[in-house]
C-alpha cells in the first residue's frame, strides 16, 4: 500500500503536494481529508494547515498488467500484455500475451507461461484483500493445448485397451493432468490416476 500524508494552506494544496510526492494522478488516488484546516484571524494569526492522506488505489488488473510488462521490458522480450475484461470477474483476472516470440513466452509445454501465471498471481494477491485467480493465455495457446491433450488422452486410452497394459503419460502440471482425467473419466473400461511427485507427476491410464 502506497500512501502519504501532506499538509498545506488549503486542502487543495495539500492534495496537490501529496499527489506529486507519490507521482499519481487524481484518478489513481484515494483521498482522505484528516484536517480541513482553518484560515485563522485575517488569514495570518492562528491559522491551521489542512492535512490530507492520499493512498494509491489498488486496481488488481493493473497490478498484474504492470508486473508482466515490467518483466518483459527488462527481459528484452517483445510481448504485448492485454487484460481481457470479458473473461475476468470478481474472482478471476484474465490476461492475453501476444508476441512475435511466442514460443519463448510459452516455453516447453507451457512451462514459461505457467511460471509467469504463478508469479503474477503472487504479485497481485499480496496487494489485494480478495483472492484472484490469474489466467494467462498466449494467443489461444490454452485452448489449443486442451484439444491436443484430449486427443492424446483418447489415443492413450485406446492403447491401454488394446494392450491391456498400464499406459504412462509424460509429466504434466496439475491443470493439464486434470484435462486428461476428465477426458477418460466417462469411459468405464479404463481408470486414470496420477503418480510421482511434482513437477514430474504423471497420469497413468489402465484397463479396468
Amino acid at each position, binding site marked *: 500500500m502506497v500512501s502519504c500524508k501532506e499538509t498545506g494552506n488549503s486542502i487543495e494544496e495539500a492534495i496537490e503536494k501529496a499527489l506529486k510526492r507519490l507521482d499519481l494522478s487524481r484518478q489513481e488516488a484515494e483521498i482522505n481529508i484528516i484536517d480541513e484546516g482553518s484560515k485563522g484571524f485575517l488569514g495570518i494569526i492562528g491559522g491551521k494547515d489542512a492535512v490530507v492522506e492520499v493512498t494509491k488505489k489498488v486496481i488488481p488488473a493493473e497490478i498484474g498488467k504492470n508486473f508482466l510488462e*515490467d518483466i518483459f521490458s527488462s527481459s528484452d522480450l517483445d510481448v504485448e500484455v492485454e487484460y481481457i475484461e470479458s473473461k475476468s470477474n470478481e474472482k478471476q483476472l484474465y490476461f492475453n500475451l501476444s508476441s512475435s*516470440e511466442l514460443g519463448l513466452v510459452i516455453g516447453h509445454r507451457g*512451462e514459461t507461461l505457467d511460471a509467469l501465471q*504463478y508469479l503474477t498471481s*503472487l504479485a497481485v494477491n*499480496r496487494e489485494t484483500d480478495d483472492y484472484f485467480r490469474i489466467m494467462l493465455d498466449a494467443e489461444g495457446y490454452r485452448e489449443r493445448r486442451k484439444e491436443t491433450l484430449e486427443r492424446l488422452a483418447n489415443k492413450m486410452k485406446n492403447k491401454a485397451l488394446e494392450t491391456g497394459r498400464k499406459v504412462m503419460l509424460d509429466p504434466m502440471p496439475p491443470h493439464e493432468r486434470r484435462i486428461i482425467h476428465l477426458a477418460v473419466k466417462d469411459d468405464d473400461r479404463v481408470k486414470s490416476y496420477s503418480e510421482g511427485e511434482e513437477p514430474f507427476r504423471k497420469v497413468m491410464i489402465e484397463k479396468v
Partner: protein
Amino acid sequence: MKEIVETIARSIVDHPEQVEVTEEVGQKSIRIKLSVAEEDMGQVIGKQGRIARAIRTVVKAAATKAGKKAIVDIKS
C-alpha cells in the same frame, strides 16, 4: 538480465528495499545472485521451491533469447 529477478522479487516480498541482485556475465552463461531479507526467504523459494523454480523458468526464457544459460542463486 538481473532486472527481471529484481522486478519479480520486489513484487513478491515484504521488504522490497532489501532485495539485492548482482550478476556476473560470462561468455556463455550469466550467474545471477538474489539476496532478500531473511524473513522473505520463504517468499522467493516457496513450498518445495516452487517460487524459485518459477523465477528460474522465466529467467531461462529471457536468457535463451540472449543466447546464454542463466543460473539463479538465492541467499538471505
